[in-house]
């Protein structure tokens, strides 16, 4: 009979150790403040913040969100207060908690991204940078860098020259072959990859004969996209050596474990925070329960452990 043991939920991405593999998908959790009323932020592996640019962005006109079968569309357009307010308000707030800070960075030009990355370099509390080259809802920048391998290579290598923290490129699923993007990011020196961002979708209100979202198209998220995300995480894990932060429709610990078995070193809960504000904590507890049940000592044993 084994002595009483506790599963080790800690995991690592690009040299950064997280106490558990559960994070929050950018844009679904603000900077943690709004969900702090529901969950103990100290328990999270990390808070991944809403995308921040060099200057404030007003975002898109409303309606910005619409429900679709098993998920939702959004076209927020990366409304954010800019790096100044973020450094003065959001970072000090998050520093009050025993969780890692991952900052999602957005921009319209390579220089915009560099400006933000350099400012964040002054803040040692920021553990990791997630570079948003995959938001489908803004007209300039973002996805323009994430849908062509050469553009992705260029921005990744530029940011690597300026970043003090490890650089994680967030990949778009709106491409023909996501492994081509993953390889380009790896070749350019990226330290990690996160995927998937939302899938571009559309909804039409047949009664008013209008687009449900003012931007016409929006990014789809929610449980309905999960099988696509798991498939892409698996493909990317096979194609590159970089650690992966996996996400897309995660609602439960079972979902999270699928991503880990497919090759993710950590996972993010996104749209499901809106449906179940306690989802992140339930996923953490459920992973621990699974590890006890199957006598899994460390998360590392599960990463990419799927087999034929």
């Amino acid at each position, binding site marked *: 009979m084994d002595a009483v043991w506790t599963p080790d939920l800690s995991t690592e991405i690009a040299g950064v150790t997280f106490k558990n593999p559960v994070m929050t998908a950018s844009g679904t959790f603000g900077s943690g403040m709004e969900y702090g*009323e529901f969950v103990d932020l100290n328990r999270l592996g990390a808070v991944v913040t809403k995308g921040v640019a060099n200057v404030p962005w*007003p975002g898109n006109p*409303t309606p*910005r969100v619409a429900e679709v079968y*098993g998920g939702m569309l959004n076209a*927020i357009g990366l409304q954010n207060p800019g790096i100044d307010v973020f450094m003065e308000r959001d970072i000090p707030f998050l520093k009050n908690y025993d969780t890692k800070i991952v900052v999602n960075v957005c921009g319209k030009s390579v220089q915009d991204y560099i400006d933000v990355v350099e400012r964040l370099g002054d803040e040692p509390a920021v553990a990791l940078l997630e570079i948003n080259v995959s938001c489908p809802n803004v007209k300039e920048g973002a996805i323009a860098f994430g849908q062509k391998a050469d553009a992705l290579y260029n921005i990744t290598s530029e940011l690597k020259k300026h970043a003090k923290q490890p650089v994680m490129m967030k990949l778009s699923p709106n491409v023909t072959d996501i492994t081509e993007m993953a390889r380009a990011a790896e070749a350019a020196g990226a330290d990690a990859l996160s995927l998937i961002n939302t899938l571009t979708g559309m909804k039409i209100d047949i009664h008013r004969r209008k687009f449900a979202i003012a931007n016409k198209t929006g990014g789809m998220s929610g449980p309905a996209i999960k099988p696509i995300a798991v498939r892409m995480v698996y493909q990317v894990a096979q194609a590159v050596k970089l650690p992966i932060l996996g996400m897309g429709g995660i609602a439960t610990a079972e979902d999270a474990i699928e991503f880990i078995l497919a090759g993710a070193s950590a996972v993010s809960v996104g749209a499901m925070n*809106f449906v179940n504000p306690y989802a992140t904590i339930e996923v953490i507890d459920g992973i621990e329960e699974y590890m006890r049940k199957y006598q899994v000592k460390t998360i590392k044993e599960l990463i990419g452990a799927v087999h034929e």
Partner: protein
Amino acid sequence: MKQKVDSIVVSQKEIAPAIFDLWIETVIARDAKPGQFIGVFPENKSTLLPRPISICEVSEDRKSLRIVYRIAGQGTAEFSKLTAGDHVQVMGTLGNGFPVEEGKGKKVFLMGGGIGIPPMLQLAKTLNEQNGGKAGIQTVVGYRDDKTFLKEDLERYSEVYIATEDGSVGTKGNIMDAVRENGISADVIFACGPMPMLRAIKKFAEETNIPAYISLEEHMACGVGACLGCVVKTKEVDHHSHVNNARICTDGPVFEAKEVEI
């Protein structure tokens, strides 16, 4: 404190065509204020997001909440089937609510249009308590026709003036027509209803130079201020994103009319 909790249906009835009156027993009732709302979750997993529905009334013992809503889609159609004893998941309380103290000792208009009428009930009740009676509390409500739901409840706490689109009850026309026809006036306005009505109220408040607090609606996802899905253009820089876009779910849903561009 905001929380998502399991709640129990006390009763439900249809009080006008496709308009349902639902009482639920929930701990969320304890701190609920007029003008705040709750997120009600459908059970059907293809419809995931909470439905924002304003609080119509809080029971005297503060253990139950009343919502009055119109069937607008799959989620509300599902809610309309709930019966006593059923469980329903509810998140709340959400939003800022009406600044009731602005109506202290004043002549007030409570203006509601259509499915914007329900929040006026708890507001009338609270103002009535605060001001020590009905005096000066004037509810002006607009309906399509003679299905004047909540009229009797509102009359218990306020003077009620009615406008109907078809002229079957009260003034034929909208709430502004009812104000003119009855020759009534106020020092402050609280309102909830369709956008054309709110625009008319904003204009009226500016012309007569009185404050108007209006409750806005927008498609929402999280309901707690995280997703930035439901925003309204504001005159002043908003405190969250500093881009003149306030979050209706948390900075609102009630705004002073002159502060928002609608």
